C-alpha cells in the first residue's frame, strides 16, 4: 500500500515537479510532508555522491534557463562563479524572490505552498557553486511567504540540512532571509546586491559579473526563486528527464499564469513550449461572458503584445521571439474589448515611471515623459505629433541607451502597442476623447 502510494506520488512529481506535491488548499508543506514526497533526497544524494562540478554539469545538461525573465542558462551562470581556489570568503548564493513584475504571481505560489522545495534548491545550488552563505531576498509585501520561509529555515536548521557540516558531508551553509522595503529595481540583480549592502539600490555597471565581484566584492550567484525550485528535481530525476519535460528545446516545466477578464484566472505548471492558445483556452477557459479578446502580454509588464493571430506560438525562450515578444515571467495578462488600449499602456508606463530608480537620465526623465504623453492622449488632449514623441522616446530608452534594462523593458509593450493599436490611438487624438469612457 505504502509503496504503491509512493509510486503514484513519484509519477505525479515526474510530470509536475514544481507543484505536484502541493496541497489543494495551498497551505505550506511541512518538512515531514515534503520528505514524504521524496524531499531532501536529492540533497542527500548530491552531498554523498556528487562533486559540485557534477551538480553544475547535470543542471547544464538539463538546459535549465532562468525563470525570472531574462532566461540565461543557469549552468552557465554557475560556471561564471570564481573558482573555489579563489581565497575570498564568504562566497554567496542569493535567491531573488523580490517578485514584483506586474501580472506575475508564480514565486508567491511556490514559496507559500512548498517552502522546503525552495530551501533544498538553495542548498543544492549553493553546494554547486561552493557558496557558504545564502540569502533569500524576499519582497516585504509577501508576508505569508515571509512567515512560511522563516519556519521552514528554522526546521531545516534543526534537521541538519542547514548550518555546519550538513549531513556529515563537510559542507556548511548559513542561510538568512532578507526582507526588502519595496522597489521594483531591487529585483534587478546588481541593484539587489547594492540593496543587501545597505546602499541605495541603483544598478551596478553591467561589466561587473557577480560571479567574480558580487556581494561586498565577493564571488556571488543570484538566481530566481522558480529557477532554484527546479534544481532538486533535476538532481533527483536527471538531466534527460528534465529536458524531455519541455515541448521545445528548453528543458522543464514553467508556472504560467493568466489574469484579466478570463473565465478561470489562475496559474498552472505546464511544459515549456505549451502554446499560448492552450493556456488561454484550455486552462484559463477563454474570455469571460460579455468580453472579447483584443490582445495579451505573455510574460509580465515588460513584454510585447500578442494578437489573436499569434496565439499558436509556444511559450518558450525562442518561439515567442519569432512573433515579436518574449516569455518574460510567463505571466499572461489579457486585454479585452472593453479595456482601452491607451489606458492599458498608460497603466504599464505609469508603473515603470514610478519605479525608475533615477540613476540614469534617459530612464529618470524619459519614463515620466512617456507617462505624460500617454495620459494626455487618454484624456483627449493628444496631438498628432505625440506619436512622433513616443517613437523618439522608444528609441532613446531602448537597449544600450540606459544603465540597466528597466527602461528598455518598459518600451517593449509600448512599441508593440503603437504598432497594434494605432487606430485606437488615432481615435483618441482625432475625437479629443477616450472612446471607452
Amino acid at each position: 500500500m505504502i509503496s504503491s502510494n509512493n509510486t503514484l506520488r513519484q509519477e505525479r512529481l515526474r510530470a509536475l515537479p514544481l507543484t505536484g506535491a502541493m496541497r489543494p488548499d495551498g497551505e505550506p508543506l511541512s518538512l515531514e510532508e515534503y520528505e514524504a514526497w521524496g524531499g531532501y533526497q536529492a540533497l542527500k544524494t548530491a552531498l554523498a555522491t556528487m562533486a559540485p562540478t557534477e551538480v553544475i554539469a547535470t543542471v547544464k545538461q538539463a538546459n535549465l534557463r532562468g525563470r525570472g525573465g531574462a532566461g540565461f542558462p543557469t549552468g552557465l551562470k554557475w560556471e561564471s562563479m570564481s573558482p573555489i581556489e579563489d581565497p575570498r570568503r564568504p562566497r554567496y548564493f542569493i535567491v531573488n524572490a523580490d517578485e514584483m513584475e506586474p501580472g506575475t504571481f508564480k514565486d508567491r505560489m511556490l514559496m507559500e505552498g512548498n517552502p522546503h522545495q525552495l530551501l533544498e534548491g538553495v542548498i543544492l545550488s549553493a553546494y554547486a557553486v561552493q557558496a557558504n552563505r545564502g540569502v533569500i531576498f524576499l519582497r516585504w509585501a509577501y508576508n505569508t511567504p515571509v512567515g512560511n520561509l522563516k519556519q521552514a529555515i528554522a526546521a531545516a536548521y534543526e534537521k541538519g540540512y542547514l548550518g555546519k557540516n550538513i549531513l556529515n558531508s563537510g559542507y556548511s551553509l548559513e542561510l538568512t532571509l532578507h526582507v526588502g522595503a519595496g522597489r521594483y529595481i531591487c529585483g534587478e540583480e546588481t541593484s539587489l546586491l547594492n540593496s543587501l549592502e545597505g546602499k541605495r539600490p541603483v544598478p551596478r555597471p553591467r561589466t561587473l559579473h557577480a560571479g567574480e565581484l558580487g556581494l561586498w566584492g565577493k564571488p556571488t550567484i543570484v538566481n530566481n526563486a522558480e529557477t532554484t525550485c527546479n534544481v532538486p528535481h533535476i538532481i533527483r530525476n536527471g538531466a534527460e528527464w528534465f529536458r524531455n519535460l519541455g515541448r521545445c528545446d528548453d528543458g522543464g516545466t514553467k508556472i504560467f499564469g493568466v489574469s484579466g477578464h478570463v473565465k478561470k484566472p489562475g496559474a498552472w505548471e505546464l511544459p515549456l513550449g505549451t502554446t499560448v492558445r492552450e493556456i488561454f483556452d484550455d486552462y484559463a477557459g477563454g474570455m469571460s461572458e460579455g468580453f472579447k479578446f483584443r490582445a495579451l502580454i505573455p510574460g509580465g509588464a515588460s513584454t510585447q503584445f500578442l494578437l489573436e493571430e499569434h496565439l499558436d506560438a509556444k511559450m518558450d525562450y525562442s518561439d515567442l521571439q519569432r512573433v515579436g515578444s518574449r516569455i518574460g515571467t510567463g505571466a499572461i495578462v489579457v486585454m479585452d474589448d472593453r479595456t482601452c488600449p491607451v489606458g492599458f499602456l498608460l497603466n504599464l508606463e505609469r508603473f515603470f515611471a514610478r519605479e525608475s530608480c533615477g540613476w540614469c537620465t534617459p530612464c529618470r526623465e524619459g519614463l515620466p515623459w512617456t507617462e505624460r504623453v500617454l495620459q494626455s492622449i487618454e484624456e483627449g488632449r493628444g496631438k498628432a505629433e505625440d506619436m512622433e514623441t513616443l517613437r523618439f522616446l522608444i528609441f532613446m530608452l531602448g537597449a544600450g541607451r540606459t544603465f540597466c534594462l528597466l527602461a528598455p523593458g518598459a518600451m517593449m509593450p509600448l512599441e508593440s502597442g503603437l504598432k497594434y493599436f494605432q487606430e485606437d490611438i488615432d481615435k483618441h487624438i482625432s475625437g479629443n476623447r477616450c472612446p471607452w469612457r
Partner: protein
Amino acid sequence: MLTEEEKREILKEVEHYPHPRAASVAALKILQQRRGWVSGDLAEVAALLGMTPAELEGLATFFSHIYLQPLGRHVIFICDSISCWVTGYDMLKEYLQDRLKIKLGETTSDGRFTLMPIACLGICDYAPAMMVDEVLYTGLNRMKIDDILEQYP
C-alpha cells in the same frame, strides 16, 4: 533620541551582517514598527550603522515601504498594477477615496486609515486586490470593501 531598547534591537540586527550599514533597512523598519513611522533625527541611527545621515536619508526616501510621515492606525495598500487595473482598480480607488474622503497618499482626519497605492501584489488571478496592514484581500467589489473597512476600527 533612540530608546535603549531601540538601540539594542538595531545593534542585534547589525550583528547579522559583515558590515553594519547592511542593517540599515532593518533598522528603519525597527523604528517604524515601534513608532508607527520613521520619526526623529536619523543622525543617531546613521552613527550606529557607520553611515552619514545623508546616506541613511537617501535610503529612507528611496524605499516605498519606509514612511517619513505619520500614518493612520491602518494602512490600505491598493494594488494599481495592470491585472487589478483591468478588473476595476479605477472604480475601487474612487470608491475608497469617496468613502474615506481622502486622496491616495493621505490619512483620514480621525487618523483611522491611510490610503496608499502599491505595485502588483502577486495575486493577479484573484484581482482586484488590496492589503490592509498585513492582510491581503482579493476579488474586491464595493460591498466587500464596506465589510473590510468595518473590521478596522
